[in-house]
């Protein structure tokens, strides 16, 4: 048995029954990371010593209490990866940037603290586009992550490290962050399950901010059940994050009953556009048919504001980013390149510390907020954002779920779009609308193209309706095998 291939629920069963120890499971993951990470570059920092200590502590408790220990520590002994934009106490957190290359936080992000409290084993930090800005991990200062299905291709981004790590069985599951598709798009490109939570569902405290009103912490997992298990641990109000919702943590795993009869599914015509890879269209259409065969009813709907989402997203996200990244001034932490005076030090530090894409977005955002342009760009974009939100609200009065492709294409070649930001931005065209609306969704594998690359299908739910999203994804996975396929490594 390949221990690393276990899902969380499988690992729990084995651990609880005493068939495997957390230490063995953790060692297996560390061994596989050791073997494969030089090729994949999924992990930036491996936390081997602490992980083994956590595993030993888990074994101690499991020996005493057996499966009962999972009642209050649902992730006891389960090895996980953490995207490197989430603060981890005592563990280097780079955000994929030179400017934080040697930065070690003194505190945990709330979601990380909750993973620790749930008994998880933290294997290490996974690669990301710099400050989560990107769709391929090519913007990481520490090298691209390679797609386990084809190492010449990108894993998607920005949570590409987490997606590749899960797809390559380097860990059971991983945390990611999703600002415009950064969990769902790499999940699609790597053939795994990616859950983007409703805005406010999971605390952002300790998530290094890209665009505060769009950022959400998400889960990259091997199936929908694992995503539900993870969500139950990390969700819930956090007094440290004023934008985290005061919503109760629901029994999402419990709600996975496989029954989607009567579920109304909307298929938006704006998400099937000319120019997208035909195999993606076919696979998603077939996936929709599967859902229909399981008892769901399918309705054609229209979300006309979708076409405005891309410019709106790039105005709001970059505006917020331009302010969020102002704190990297070399005064208190991070890289410092001394200059002739204060301003020169700022210039040199940020010039050397930030990559091209980050600089591009800071400049875009600064411009959009400048006197004379603010009303035309930022204010206008916020108005359109409100329209997009309302459009989704109207749609969800009609349907329970909206189904669409996650990405217009399967994984593209490393370097293929690196010099063309617009082409790169277009790879998020189906995902970023959801962030503007603050709703939730999951990307699940629904087929493969002729090159053997996975295709993702996106199930979108109303804000805070993770229950329906996960239930439908799980029902789909009970009746399909796409999510069980593994890359040959």
């Amino acid at each position, binding site marked *: 048995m390949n221990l690393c291939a276990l899902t969380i629920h499988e690992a729990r069963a084995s651990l609880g029954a005493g068939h495997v120890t957390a230490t063995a499971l953790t060692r297996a993951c560390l061994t596989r990371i050791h073997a494969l990470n030089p090729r994949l570059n999924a992990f930036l920092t491996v936390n081997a010593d602490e992980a083994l200590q956590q595993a030993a502590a888990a074994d101690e408790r499991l020996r005493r209490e057996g499966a009962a220990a999972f009642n209050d520590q649902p992730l006891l002994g389960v090895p996980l990866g953490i995207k490197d934009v989430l603060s981890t106490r005592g563990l280097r957190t780079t955000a994929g940037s030179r400017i934080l290359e040697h930065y070690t936080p003194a505190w945990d992000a709330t979601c990380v603290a909750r993973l620790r409290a749930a008994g998880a084993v933290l294997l290490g930090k996974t690669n990301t586009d710099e400050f989560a800005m990107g769709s391929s991990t090519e913007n990481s200062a520490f090298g691209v992550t390679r797609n386990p299905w084809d190492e010449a291709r990108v894993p998607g981004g920005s949570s590409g490290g987490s997606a590749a790590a899960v797809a390559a069985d380097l860990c059971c599951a991983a945390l990611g962050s999703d600002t415009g598709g950064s969990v769902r798009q790499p999940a699609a490109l790597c053939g795994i399950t990616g859950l983007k939570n409703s805005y406010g569902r999971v605390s952002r405290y300790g998530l290094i901010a890209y665009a505060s009103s769009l950022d959400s912490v998400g889960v990259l997992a091997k199936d929908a059940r694992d995503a539900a298990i993870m969500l139950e641990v990390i969700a819930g109000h956090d007094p440290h994050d*004023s934008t985290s919702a005061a919503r109760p943590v629901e029994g999402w795993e419990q709600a996975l009953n496989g029954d989607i009869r009567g579920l109304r599914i909307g298929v938006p015509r704006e998400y099937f556009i000319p120019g997208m890879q035909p195999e993606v269209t076919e696979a998603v259409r077939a996936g929709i048919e599967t859902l229909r065969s399981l008892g769901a009813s399918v309705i054609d709907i229209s979300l006309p504001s979708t076409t405005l989402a891309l410019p709106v997203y790039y105005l709001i996200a970059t505006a917020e980013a331009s*302010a969020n990244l102002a704190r990297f001034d070399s005064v208190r932490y991070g890289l410092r390149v001394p200059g002739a005076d204060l301003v020169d030090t700022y210039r040199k530090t940020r010039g050397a510390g930030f990559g091209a894409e980050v600089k591009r977005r800071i400049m875009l955002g600064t411009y959009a907020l400048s006197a004379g342009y603010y009303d035309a760009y930022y204010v206008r974009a916020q108005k359109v954002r409100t329209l997009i939100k309302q459009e989704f609200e109207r749609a969800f009065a009609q349907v329970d779920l909206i189904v669409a492709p996650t990405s217009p294409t399967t994984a593209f070649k490393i370097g293929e779009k690196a010099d063309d930001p617009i082409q790169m931005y277009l790879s998020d065209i189906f995902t970023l609308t959801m962030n503007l609306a603050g709703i939730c969704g999951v990307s699940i594998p629904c087929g493969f193209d002729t090159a053997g690359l996975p295709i993702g299908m996106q199930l979108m739910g109303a804000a805070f309706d993770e229950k329906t999203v996960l239930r439908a994804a799980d029902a789909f996975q009970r009746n399909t095998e796409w999510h069980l396929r593994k890359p040959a490594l």
Partner: protein
Amino acid sequence: MEYEVVIGMETHVEQSTHSKMFCSCSASFFGAEPNTNVCPTCLGMPGALPVINQRAVEFCIMVGLALNCKIARHTFWERKSYWYPDLPKGYQISQYQCPLCYDGYIDVDVRDLSSGNWTETHYRKRIRIRRAHLEEDTGKLAHAGNVSFVDYNRSGVPLIEIVTEPDIASADEAYAYLSALRDIVRYLGVSSGDMEKGALRGEPNMSLRPKGSDTFGTKVEIKNLNSLRAVRDSIAYEIKRQSRLLDEGDQIRQVTLGWDDARGVTVIQREKEEAHDYRYFPEPDLPPLVIDDTWLEAIRARMPELPLAKNDRFMRDFGLSGYDAMVLTKDRATAEYFEKVVAALCGEKNQGLQAAAKSAANWVTGELFRLMGATGAGIEHVKVDPAQLAGLIQLVDNKTININTARQVFEEMFASGRDAGAIVEAKGLAQVNDEATLSKVVEEVLDANPQQAQAYLAGNEKLFQFLVGQTMKRTKGKGNPQVLQGLLKAALDKRRSQ
């Protein structure tokens, strides 16, 4: 030419909340070891988020209500972006488009301060308040040679920014405005108001124009003023300087000035800068701020009577002079102390209210202030409670002791906190009012000083006081002075007629 000055004032009030505005660090930065009251949020660490301190919002609303402002019921926070090492996030969380409080006014009593003393002559002036909003303070820089250090203890301390309309028309008015504002924030318990410690920072912007003109002249700003006097003196100095320049046909340059207290002159700190683009936009990390009726009314219900209202009531109900009312209402605890003395003297029926208020005012502004001044004790540390002071006043009123003895007794009370009655009894200080006893004393004095008595009768009236003094001496100061004087007069008259 004759000029008139147009002054607007921008004031920052450092709140004395327990914790900072967006984190739970202690807000008492003054004197603390550098960078000890800090956390990820007020250090601007990656991933840290702000959480509103409700208390700070309430404090700002209280100041707004005291300044007769409208209170925004639905407002939001904004980021103000600029670079400086004392600003850890690279932006300050502030308010720009929708200030929490707006369109208010404050009435202030303006006094002619040229003599350096408070006087009774004054007029009341209304100064409009444009806005008062809440923001976070920055850290502090310290320079040593070409190295600079940053202390973030002050970073994130709640600050209220109050901006007036350009309604202030003299240095004295500016003084009166800031002084009234300081009294108010102290009354509300919102801030220490200490300008010396930077807890209240008033920055006037001013321009001169020919009297009667309706266009504005070139504006200068004065910063880093750390006392009310510096505010008044710097403005007075600038009025003179600019008048002279304008008379000579020179231009006024648009600059930011500082004040050299030692030399009594303004100094240029910065030439006119490029208009700064702060790129304000709504703070996405904080939900909009909604002030509902319940909250606002709860805050309103907690508002104390403010200094000016108290001042006017003291004059009206207690019949106090403008001066007494002003010094008694400047500080809330003093005013409350005074009112408690009056209440203890009058009882529930308010009998003899104005007389009681007059003697209470005399004692508080006289002996009490004198001893507080001499010992440096604040009113909250005074050992004599209001009921005890009333007890002392009653001993004078019912002639148990005379006024001179009362002053001695009060000094003892101030030092020990004992009751007046106990001190009088222990030291045998009770006044002698008995006429038979005192007549005997008078006769003894006249017998002992025949020459002086003779001289008085011969027309040297000044010697009467000498003889009174002798009777007081013989009674060890305990003789009732009025009775003694009456008896002495009668005895002398009797001798004259003999």
